[in-house]
């Protein structure tokens, strides 16, 4: 394999690796804009210049590839390529490029949403000149909407064309284009074909500067005020890896987190903006029990005692409804509580969308059907019709949440059952059918594992704190089960995972530590 020397270090690389890739893979920074690992190389921004020995002028490192040089031609008898990222000429050119890119830039970082995570700001600070020689009037263009959720600030755009290539190569929708040439060029969209596909939000993420902005986040906060929680999107069975940005318990935005086994670099707008639907809900935070005049608040002690009593009285007539919206741990504990006599509600679906890049939005809106089926092996899919036969008297239901609508068949079934326990985070359609409602966690409060539809187990981490007296979703069935069975309870979610591993071999070596931020395929079929 070829050997490339970058500054003072030797690296052995695959033939055909670009100098920029080789450097980045080894934590050597070369400033760059137009290069993005998911997109075709265009070599247009000229920010990534390096000096390559034997070449007459500086080269763009993103589009210069290390090849195999015949042994008699190797530099110093050893190297296939010798690169300097620190040469004086390189440093001068970096300054020049930045001065050039900033000619028409408004230098409005104090009001720019990208500030704090802007490659233009960072590189200008690190590699640029503190002053500009440009004394003429700047070109000023008004902001424009490219689509309903994306605004462009042309004055900040450095025309790297990442956004254009994204719509051509990743979403395949080709809405964006570079209009005109030279001084007049700008990113544009045809009036009758706006940027309104379900992957549109990604262009704001891949824009290296503050030119493309999501209207959902614009001027809401400053990035350095926010905490970033790596987690998993819960809006379909793909399980895109995400970062949840929040300030205390307020979620401000979601961005995709790189995972080459799942979503690569991107996420869809359903998942990206989906968190808003939890903002307005009336969060249930204390146990509620149905009495003559409707639901009244009760204490956890009473709620659990009552539930255990009913459970005792129901004999064999007990069942549970698992939920593909809940973690493996919650479903596992539910299965234990009802002796594996588990069913589900009908799935919540939408159209599956496949993009030319391979990105997929699943038709199954639930994040954890695979895992639920794994830990509830004898699950009955059409439970509503199976119930009479089984003479159920006690039903424990893990609520799918606010997206669930109950059909008449289900409403009728729930009415017939003597005692219905619903574990939920809001007064949903399902909660309303309960005899007792136990407050669990809302989606962004949950912690545990979920298994995506490709069989990858991932660590779902909480971004916001659990509200009021609500309890972790695995803990509630666990408390009832241990009291009912007269056994000692489990103390934390890791010990539930441990128990789950004992019952289900595929999960036997799953721990949070091993899952890390990239997850693991079931049975550890090693790809890492």
């Amino acid at each position, binding site marked *: 394999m070829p050997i490339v020397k970058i500054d003072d270090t030797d690296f052995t690389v695959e033939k055909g690796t670009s100098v920029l890739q080789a450097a980045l893979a080894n934590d050597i920074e070369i400033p760059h804009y137009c290069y993005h690992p998911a997109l075709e190389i265009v070599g247009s921004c000229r920010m990534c210049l390096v000096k390559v020995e034997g070449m007459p002028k500086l080269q763009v490192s993103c589009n210069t590839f290390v090849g195999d040089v015949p042994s008699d031609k190797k530099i110093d008898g050893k190297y296939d390529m010798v690169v300097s990222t620190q040469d004086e000429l390189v440093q001068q050119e970096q300054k020049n490029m930045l001065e050039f890119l900033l000619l028409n830039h408004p230098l409005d970082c104090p009001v720019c949403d990208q500030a704090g995570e802007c490659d233009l700001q960072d590189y200008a600070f690190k590699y640029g000149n503190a002053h500009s020689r440009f004394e003429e009037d700047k070109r000023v263009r008004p902001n424009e909407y490219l689509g309903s959720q994306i605004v462009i600030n042309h004055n900040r755009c450095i025309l790297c064309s990442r956004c254009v290539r994204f719509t051509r190569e990743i979403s395949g*929708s*080709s*809405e964006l284009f570079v209009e005109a040439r030279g001084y007049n060029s700008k990113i544009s969209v045809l009036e009758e074909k706006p940027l309104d596909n379900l992957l549109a939000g990604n262009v704001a993420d891949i824009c290296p500067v503050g030119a493309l902005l999501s209207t959902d986040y614009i001027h809401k906060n400053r990035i350095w005020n926010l905490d970033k929680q790596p987690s998993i999107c819960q809006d379909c069975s793909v399980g895109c890896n995400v970062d949840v940005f929040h300030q205390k318990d307020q979620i401000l935005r979601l961005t995709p987190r790189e995972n080459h086994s799942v979503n690569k670099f991107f996420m869809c707008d359903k998942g990206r903006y989906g968190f808003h639907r939890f903002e307005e809900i009336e969060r249930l935070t204390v146990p509620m029990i149905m009495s003559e005049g409707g639901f009244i608040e009760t204490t956890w002690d009473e709620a659990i005692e009552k539930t255990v009593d009913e459970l005792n009285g129901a004999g064999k007539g007990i069942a549970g409804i698992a939920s593909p919206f809940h973690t493996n741990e919650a479903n596992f504990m539910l299965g234990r509580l009802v002796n594996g006599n588990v069913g589900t509600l009908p799935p919540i679906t939408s159209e599956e969308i496949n993009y030319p890049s391979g990105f997929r939005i699943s038709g199954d809106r639930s994040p954890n059907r695979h895992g639920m089926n794994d830990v509830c092996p004898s699950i009955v899919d059409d439970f509503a019709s199976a119930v009479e036969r089984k003479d159920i008297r006690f039903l424990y239901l893990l609520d799918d949440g606010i997206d669930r609508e109950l059909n008449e068949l289900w409403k009728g079934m729930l009415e017939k059952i003597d005692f219905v326990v619903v574990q939920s985070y809001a007064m949903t359609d399902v909660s309303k059918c309960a005899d007792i409602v136990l407050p669990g966690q809302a989606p962004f409060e949950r912690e545990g594992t979920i298994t995506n539809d490709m069989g990858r187990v991932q660590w779902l981490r909480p971004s916001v704190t659990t509200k009021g007296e609500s309890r972790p979703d695995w803990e509630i069935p666990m408390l009832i089960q241990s009291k009912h069975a007269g056994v000692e309870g489990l103390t934390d979610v890791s010990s539930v995972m441990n128990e789950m591993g004992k019952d289900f071999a595929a999960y036997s070596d799953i721990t949070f530590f091993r899952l890390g931020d990239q997850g693991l395929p079931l049975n550890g079929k090693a790809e890492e």
Partner: protein
Amino acid sequence: MSNNGAPKQSFSFADPDKVQNILSQYPDKQSALLPLLHLAQSEEGYISSAVIDTISEIVDCHQALVMDCVSFYTMLYTKPHGRHIIQVCQTLSCSLNGADGLVDHVTAKCGIKPGETTDDNRFTLMKVECLGSCGTAPVVQVNNDYHESLTLEEFEKLLESLK
């Protein structure tokens, strides 16, 4: 957003055989984009949004890609224009060698600013990016011809000769 002007109508090529002939010369349809645009412009006078729709269908690519190409080349016009199109290069060499003076001259003489057409439909004035003839700056393209190293006097004569 770019507005490619014209009211919505449909466009079809006068001679489908010509289109087929152009397409048959390239290994893939998209390569036929430029010759088809030239053909359409020779028939319509400019590239209307109807032309873009038709061509994007023929070469099987998104309208935005066609527009990307059309807007890149200044010899493709996106608006109706006068009999003579005067394109003054505004890029570095030409600017340093007096391109602004040429533009101002047309404005003073004919009362049109860049992008405008005279009332008698004789001239359309445009400022364009580098015409690739920087060594003979300033350069003005009139219709399909280059006029190089122009002085104001030569330019004035040139304008007079265009009826």
